[in-house]
């Protein structure tokens, strides 16, 4: 059914910078978020956390809490349904027997106001018998370590073991080898809207939950497991969601807790995280301890790679445990490498539970892969750009891992950013400070300008690349999405999409796809996508999949509508439907813009108002031609298309304070086709911002299982003054499988940034940072260490 009847150069809405459908509501304060909802009789739900890292629960006394005026329900693990939930099937809403992290939920209350809820929480008495805690993956794997989950034989949840070629032997044939060890920190989504749930049961015991989830249908299933009730009795509604970034990829205890409170109180219960709760009680990105070596041939051919990764998953396992699948992809397939080995251990500890976060393993693996690429280039005496170009993937190839690369603009991305950053200045930038003329405004107000030959400021330029799934990712058995398109009598087109909008703008891209197919304005398209009782099934918004997967589903549904309208218009005009087109709101003979035609809504009315009339609608289902990776070898084509990108950065280092400032980012990404360039850039730029934070300032400091900096003051995401101007470059390669050639872009903007900054830092001052974030203190220590080594101390 796929036929390219659209002239690439003649799109009316594809490729246009159309504002998001909800932009005006958001800019004027009209958008309604979960936090804005209010139901009659609604109660406040609050959770009591253990605040001990590992302990047996001896007794929980809720008797005093229950007596607080205004308290309507107090629940503990005794109220749990029997089933465990989560990716590891290891979690319960409230903990009944033991707690495994400080943030473990032990009791919850629903009350008429915050005061009553807080008072009740303070009156709950829990007696614990403390157990020895495990504060790192290394400790958890040590012989004789206490078990986090006693039903398991040890604390290793899962080992990933991937190989192609023969890496062990191949290193013997490598001409140059680099080997390094990396320490990657806890970081967290820190979406501007905190996590939210509002639950209400009707008198037939059916649950409605308003949620900030990214996976409404899987949440329906997961809640059914967690609550022990039929999924068909659960309805999930997603209000406007204030960012998620992977936070909403699993069911987390607060959601079933909210439902249990609603059930036990018989009232609607609202559970909204406070900001500090958002920091300590949402699942973070896993900290990782990585060892990797890479070997190369003298002519610059990448030859062998061997990585081992230790991930501290914390007390419970979420979908975040699957991130090694993505890490191995970057390790084994970002470049052509004939021999590769990758091992990852996912380990339980008594640290806070971790989860999925934008990039899903890729920012981590891109950091270690791309910094080693620069080290290898240096050993070979090759230019890092040339070295990357030599080993870059090419279109229409298959990697040893089984990734079928169709469209691929990696080389174009590399060339483009190198040119735009002024790569040829790279050697002079770092050696001669005075020759540098910056063409962008200096944004720092508290640093000396580079005007003094004694200046401690050094500059550097760096580059890094990325590969990311761009055509869905089959991590569940289905990677499908449904869509329905209908047209009413007045020409209002409605797309009912299974997909989820979390702020990224995908619903606008979907509206553009439908508008292009039907030849209507984007303004004529409404998107309904927020209610599981209305929308068709979808696995959720993750893996940069929505524009690609939901876009294809919408494309299919819209085409059915188009064909129906054309068929009927053909009868009305007495021509063959093959000669008709829909454009500018009209159905008319192709290429005959001035000729006779009929307004499309008139055709729709004619289809409704007649004997044997019919509804003008279409239904699409798209599940990409991919497969689950083999469960033993981890090989297979997980995605129907792959996105590529390169970023180049220019930075400044203050050698007296160690502080790094990014002056400019140039980001070129192969997105197949930009359905809406404005929001493609938005994804790239927002990703780069997370990348700058990952590189320089963001770290959730976890000590003895406790989060020390649970605030937006001390968890330092970049402000507008920390971010440099970003130049986004869109590379279009017209993917054969993507809707209008589009590929996903949601994650890759944040993948290469930290590596590019680390490479620029090396260019500036000759130090290699293997630990993130590269704070002033760490950089200064490294500079002093380098000085010491050079002085031969």
């Amino acid at each position, binding site marked *: 059914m796929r036929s390219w009847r659209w002239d690439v150069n003649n799109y009316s809405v594809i490729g246009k910078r159309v504002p998001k459908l909800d932009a005006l509501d958001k800019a004027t*304060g009209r958008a*309604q978020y979960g*936090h804005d909802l209010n139901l009659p009789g609604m109660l406040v739900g609050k959770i009591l956390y253990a605040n001990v890292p590992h302990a047996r629960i001896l007794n929980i006394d809720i008797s005093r809490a229950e007596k607080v005026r205004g308290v309507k329900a107090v629940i503990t693990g005794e109220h749990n349904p029997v089933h465990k939930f989560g990716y590891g099937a290891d979690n319960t809403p409230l903990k009944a027997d033991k707690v495994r992290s400080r943030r473990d939920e032990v009791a919850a209350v629903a009350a008429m106001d915050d005061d009553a809820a807080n008072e009740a929480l303070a009156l709950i008495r829990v007696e614990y018998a403390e157990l020895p805690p495990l504060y790192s993956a290394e400790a958890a794997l040590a012989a004789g370590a206490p078990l986090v989950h006693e039903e398991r034989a040890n604390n290793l949840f899962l080992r990933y073991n991937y190989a192609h070629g023969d890496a062990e032997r191949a290193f013997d044939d490598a001409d140059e080898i680099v080997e390094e060890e990396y320490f990657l920190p806890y970081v967290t989504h820190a*979406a501007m809207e905190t996590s939210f749930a509002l639950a209400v049961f009707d008198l037939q015991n059916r649950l409605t939950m308003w949620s900030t989830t990214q996976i409404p249908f899987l949440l329906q299933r997961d809640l059914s497991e967690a609550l022990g009730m039929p999924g068909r009795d659960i309805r999930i509604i997603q209000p406007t969601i204030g960012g998620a970034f992977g936070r909403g990829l699993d069911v987390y205890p607060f959601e079933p807790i909210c439902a249990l409170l609603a059930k036990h109180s018989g009232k609607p219960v609202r559970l909204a995280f406070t900001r500090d709760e958002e920091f300590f009680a949402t699942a973070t990105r896993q900290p990782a301890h990585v060892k990797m070596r890479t070997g190369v041939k003298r002519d610059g051919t990448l030859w062998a790679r061997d990585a081992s990764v230790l991930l501290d998953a914390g007390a419970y396992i979420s979908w975040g445990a699957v991130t090694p699948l993505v890490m191995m992809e970057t390790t084994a397939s970002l470049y052509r490498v004939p021999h590769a080995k990758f091992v990852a251990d996912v380990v339980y500890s008594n640290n806070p539970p971790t989860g999925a976060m934008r990039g899903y393993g890729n920012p981590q693996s891109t950091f270690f892969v791309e910094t080693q690429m620069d080290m290898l280039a240096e050993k070979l005496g090759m230019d890092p750009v040339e070295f990357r170009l030599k080993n870059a993937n090419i279109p229409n190839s298959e990697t040893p891992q089984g990734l079928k690369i169709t469209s691929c603009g990696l080389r174009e991305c590399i060339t483009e950013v190198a040119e735009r950053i002024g790569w040829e200045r790279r050697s002079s930038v770092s050696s001669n400070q005075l020759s540098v003329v910056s063409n962008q405004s200096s944004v720092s107000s508290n640093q000396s300008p580079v005007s003094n030959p004694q200046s401690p400021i050094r500059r550097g330029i760096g580059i890094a690349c990325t590969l990311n799934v761009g055509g869905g990712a089959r991590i569940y058995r289905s990677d499908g999405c449904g869509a329905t398109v209908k047209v009413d009598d007045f020409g209002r087109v409605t797309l009912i999409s299974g997909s989820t909008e979390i702020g990224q703008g995908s619903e606008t891209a979907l509206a553009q796809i439908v508008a292009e197919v039907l030849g209507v304005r984007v303004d004529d398209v409404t998107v309904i996508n927020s209610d599981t009782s209305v929308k068709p099934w979808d696995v959720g918004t993750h893996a940069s999949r929505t524009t690609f997967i939901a876009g294809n589903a919408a494309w299919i549904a819209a085409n059915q509508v188009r064909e129906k309208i054309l068929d009927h218009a053909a009868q009305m005009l007495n021509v063959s439907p093959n000669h008709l087109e829909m454009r500018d709101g009209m159905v008319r003979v192709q290429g005959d813009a001035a000729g006779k035609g009929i307004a499309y809504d008139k055709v729709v009315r004619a289809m409704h108002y007649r004997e044997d009339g019919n509804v003008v609608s279409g239904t699409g289902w798209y599940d990409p031609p991919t497969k689950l990776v083999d469960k033993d070898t981890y090989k297979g084509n997980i995605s129907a298309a792959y996105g590529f990108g390169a970023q180049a950065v220019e930075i400044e280092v203050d050698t007296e304070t160690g502080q790094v400032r990014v002056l400019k980012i140039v980001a070129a990404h192969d997105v197949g086709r930009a359905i809406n360039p404005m929001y493609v*850039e938005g994804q790239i730029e927002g990703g780069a911002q997370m990348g700058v934070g990952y590189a320089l300032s963001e770290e959730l400091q976890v000590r003895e299982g406790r989060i020390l900096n649970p605030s*937006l003051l001390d968890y330092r995401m970049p402000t507008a003054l920390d971010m440099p101007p*970003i130049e986004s470059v869109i590379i279009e390669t017209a993917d054969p499988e993507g809707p209008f050639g589009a590929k996903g872009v949601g994650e890759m903007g944040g993948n290469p940034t930290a590596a590019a900054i680390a490479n620029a830092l090396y260019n500036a001052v000759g130090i290699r940072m293997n630990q993130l974030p590269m704070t002033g203190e760490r950089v200064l220590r490294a500079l002093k260490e380098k000085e010491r080594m050079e002085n031969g101390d």
Partner: protein
Amino acid sequence: MQQLYISLTVNGDVHELNIEPRRTLMEILREDLELHGTHEGCGSGDCGACTVLLDNEPVPSCLVLAADADGRQVVTVEGLVQNGEPHAVQKAIVTHGGTQCGYCTPGIVISSVALLNENPHPNELEAREAIAGNLCRCTGYQKIVDAIVAVGRE
């Protein structure tokens, strides 16, 4: 418990309210006046999502006691729409792609309006300084800055 009678002028309307002293301006705006455009991001002045104009100056409304705002003028993001016409900043944020999840947007709009009231033609650095107290997790700020500078050039 002490109750205070206060008078607040919000978006041009006078509101006489009977409040507990501990309530913040943000709570009054969101809960009593149902002006949900003022968002709570942290409750401690670290994110700027709840920024409103108080006597024409931007403030984090989560750190203002409503009692202390007695008799003063408040403008929220809703109040910038005049006779159905959004403010130039609101339009620019829309057309430049300066909002994604939108949770920070009302605060950013208010900070930008405050800047432009004082400095009608800001450059990029001035725009960045003006919104440095508004955290955004989605956009990388570039398109927001572009929008503010563009308004100044109109």
